[in-house]
């Protein structure tokens, strides 16, 4: 292409050089012709000057000796001008005829000068003077005649030359015009051809580039030639192919990684690996383009490695059991590295894990903390297994091993959690029973009063005849019985061990019930309970558990005031929280033990408490999404502040689910 460019530009340059040369030649010719014409015109002017000068001299001659006669110096100047005219004329003509004529005129002028000089200088009689004058005038006339004749010739020549020059100019104009047109069209043709040669491959390459940009990776242009464009097209095709290969490889990697990611991700969501083994085998086969995937796991009890029922592409699905020592010797032989074999029969010791007929095999170990959990056997890949396949399977095996271990750990944790929960529940129940124990005396006293009334009224009624009076007394007995029954029911409700029961809870109502249960105890301890319940919304919670908390806090307060005192119970809404305050005027809690009061089994009432009351209260409030704060000053009293969210998202979701059934 470079050569073509140089050639084309060279051709254009040559063309314009020829055009320029022609222009110069014709311009020169025209200029020369015009010069000739101008010269001829100049000659005509010179000739006219000659005639004028001659006529001036002639008039000088005629007036010599008259009053019109000029000074001799003037005449001399006029003749000198005449002489100069003829000299300048002689300087430019070269044609033979003209030169001869000019020579003749020159010689005549000389004679004329002589004659004039004689006339001027001669002193003689009038007759001679007149004769001399006539001679001079005669020569002057001849000179005029000759000049006129020359003028005629010059004019003729001028006309000829002018016509010739005009003709030449016209011809030159036509030739130049034609040259210009031809040159223009040839240049246009060259430019067109050159542009076509450049734009055609460029547009093809642009098309190819656009195809690639549009995602058509691997696009091949069919443009071929021997120029640089051809080379470029070839390089472009190579680049496109390479791009395609790289993209395919990249997509392959992405696919592998995605597969790997999806597989491993599923492991960590699962508690039981058995659930995924089936799908896992299929996905491994897909990932590595293999036709057979089998999983062997170590049976802890037997010690052998047994093929898992989840496998992919097995012709014979009978379980295969391989002795522990054979598997471990293979593991040790390969130092835990994966086994890659495209001809499995050649490897000694591999036979126990072969089912026979495997074209190629890839084995990756499932080991964790030096414990061999099992291995994955991938076989019958259409192509050979590569190191890359081995690397991929090793990564996957690592994840599977971790997932298996996690699964085991999870199962173990789950077991422990269940045990822990059971223990906790037992503890709560124990604490509750302890609280009930405390309540029991009060409850007994509380029940005793109605019972005493009932017994008293029953005794009296035995003696009543008036049925109306008996009815009246029976109403009192009924009322007192119901009261006793309610107290017992409340106690039973409280004491009953039951799971979390969520419902719409009115904190104020619960507090009233608790107050009822603990009222007698407070009274006997000379504790005045002051209740100030604000306007608070209902919330979702377990009323029984909350009741347990409130009973615990009131009991603690009563115990903290052995000499009696005052317990203020207040509720209010602060923003999105319900605040419940228990403020006593008791002994207070020493600052050094204040931070420990919510710890389990921590108690200051050795003989009375279990040390679980506050810690369980703390957990219950936490479960409700709230918190308990405590402020205490020794000798002045303690304030417990419970803050519960109006809406606890976890409970709300659970409650909604329960409501939906």
């Amino acid at each position, binding site marked *: 292409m470079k050569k073509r460019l140089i050639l084309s530009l060279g051709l254009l340059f040559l063309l314009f050089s020829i055009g320029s040369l022609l222009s110069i030649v014709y311009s020169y010719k025209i200029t020369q012709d015009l010069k000739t014409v101008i010269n001829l015109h100049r000659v005509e002017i010179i000739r006219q000057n000659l005639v004028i000068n001659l006529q001036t001299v002639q008039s000088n001659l005629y007036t010599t000796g008259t009053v019109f006669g000029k000074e001799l110096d003037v005449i*001399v100047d006029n003749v*000198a001008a005449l002489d100069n005219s003829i000299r300048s004329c002689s300087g430019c003509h070269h044609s033979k005829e003209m030169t001869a004529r000019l020579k003749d005129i020159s010689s005549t002028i000389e004679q004329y000068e*002589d004659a004039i000089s*004689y006339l001027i*200088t*001669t002193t*003689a*009689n009038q007759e*001679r003077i007149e004769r001399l004058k006539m001679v001079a005038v005669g020569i002057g006339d001849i000179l005029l005649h000759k000049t006129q004749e020359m003028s005629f010739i010059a004019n003729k020549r001028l006309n000829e030359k002018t016509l010739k020059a005009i003709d030449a100019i016209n011809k030159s104009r036509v030739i130049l015009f034609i040259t210009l047109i031809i040159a223009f069209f040839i240049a246009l043709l060259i430019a067109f051809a050159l542009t076509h040669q450049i734009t055609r491959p460029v547009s093809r390459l642009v098309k190819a580039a656009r195809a690639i940009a549009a995602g058509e990776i691997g696009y091949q242009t069919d443009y071929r030639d021997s120029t640089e464009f051809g080379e470029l097209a070839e390089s472009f095709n190579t680049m496109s192919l390479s791009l395609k290969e790289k993209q395919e490889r990249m997509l392959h990697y992405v696919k592998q990684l995605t597969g790997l990611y999806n597989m491993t991700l599923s492991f960590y969501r699962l508690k039981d690996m058995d659930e995924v083994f089936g799908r896992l085998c299929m996905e491994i086969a897909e990932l590595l383009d293999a036709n057979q995937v089998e999983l062997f796991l170590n049976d802890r009890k037997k010690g052998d490695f047994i093929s898992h029922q989840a496998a992919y592409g097995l012709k014979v699905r009978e379980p295969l059991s391989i002795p522990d020592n054979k598997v471990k010797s293979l593991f040790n032989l390969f130092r835990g590295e994966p086994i890659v074999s495209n001809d499995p029969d050649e490897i000694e010791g591999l036979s126990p894990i072969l089912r026979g007929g495997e074209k190629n095999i890839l084995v990756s170990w499932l080991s964790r903390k030096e414990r061999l959990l099992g291995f994955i056997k991938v076989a019958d890949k259409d192509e050979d297994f590569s190191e890359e396949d081995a690397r991929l399977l090793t990564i996957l095996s690592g994840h599977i091993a971790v997932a298996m271990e996690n699964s085991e750990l999870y199962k173990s944790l789950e077991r422990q959690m269940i045990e822990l929960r059971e223990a906790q529940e037992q503890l709560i129940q124990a604490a509750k029973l302890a609280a009930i124990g405390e309540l029991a005396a009060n409850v007994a006293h509380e029940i005793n009063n109605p019972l005493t009334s009932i017994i008293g009224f029953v005794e009296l009624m035995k003696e009543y005849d008036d049925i109306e009076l008996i009815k009246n007394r029976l109403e009192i007995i009924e009322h007192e019985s119901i009261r006793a029954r309610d107290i017992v029911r409340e106690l039973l409700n409280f004491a009953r061990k039951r799971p979390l029961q969520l419902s719409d809870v009115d904190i104020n109502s619960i507090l009233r019930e608790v107050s009822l249960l603990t009222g007698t105890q407070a009274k006997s301890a000379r504790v005045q309970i002051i209740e100030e319940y604000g306007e608070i919304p209902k919330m979702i919670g377990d009323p029984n558990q909350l009741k347990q908390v409130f009973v615990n806090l009131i009991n603690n307060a009563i115990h903290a005031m052995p000499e009696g005192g005052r317990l203020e119970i207040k509720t209010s809404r602060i923003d999105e929280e319900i605040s419940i305050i228990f403020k006593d005027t008791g002994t207070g809690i020493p600052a050094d033990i204040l931070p420990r009061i919510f710890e389990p089994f921590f108690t200051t009432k050795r003989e009375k408490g279990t040390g679980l009351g506050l810690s369980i209260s703390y957990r219950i409030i936490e479960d409700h999404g709230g918190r308990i704060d405590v402020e205490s000053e020794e000798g002045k009293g303690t304030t417990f502040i419970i803050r519960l969210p109006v809406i606890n998202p976890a409970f709300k979701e659970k409650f909604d689910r329960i409501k939906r059934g």
Partner: protein
Amino acid sequence: MKVFLNLIILLSIIFPPVVSGQEEILIGLIPEENIFRQMDRHRPLASYLSRKLGVNVRLTILSRYGDIVDSFVSRRMDGAFFGVFTSVLAMERLGVEPVVRPVNLDGSSTSQAYIFVRKGSGINGIRDMKGRRIAFVDRATATGYLYLIALLRENGISNLDSFFREYYFTGSHDASVHAVMDNRADIGIAKGRVFRKLSEKDPLIKNELVILFRSPEFPDTTLCLKKDMPESLKKRIRDTLLNMDRDRDGVEVLKALGAIRFMPATRDDFKAFFDVAKKAGIDIRNYRYR
């Protein structure tokens, strides 16, 4: 001071000093030959002097030899190239001073008068001239008139009207030669230098004319300057002309003039002329040349 002087010298070289009070120098020419050629010959010299002196030098030609003495005064000429006779007339009557004269191409600075006739005219001596036509140059020329008058007087002839059939004055030396050549006169008298020059140009002259008498040598054309011209200017003109042959431009000008250089001229150079004038019986002071 030295710097100032140097500056003046430098300026004087760049701008040649203009002659004080002199706007133009007018030099007269005698019609020694064809007046146009005479002017042509002297024009380069005028230009040369103009350049050298820093003042315009203008030429003027006269139609008559004798006119130059009157015209010198009437036209306020500053100098003139006089012939030998007119030089003497001007020296005597106007007090002009001879300055230089050209040395001709042949090395001479003098000229003779030739008396010539056509071959076969039958004129061989003074006596044969009787009843013939004669063409003089001018009454105020030594080589075109005075010498023949002196000869005639020596031969006892003093009345021209009765001796010649016709006599007239051509005004210039070449015109006299041509007058005889053209048979407008039988006898002619002219300056030898002019005669030789014409003969060289036109061989017919040599073939058809025969010289009967040659005069003694007279000083050739002499440049005389007016009496009251400042001496400094006279000196500069003289020096310029005398040194011309050492200057390339000057040599060219001399060539056009038909000379090789100029030489100094003095009154003593005119001694030969006085002898002839005496023989011709002419009293210079009272001579009527018209």
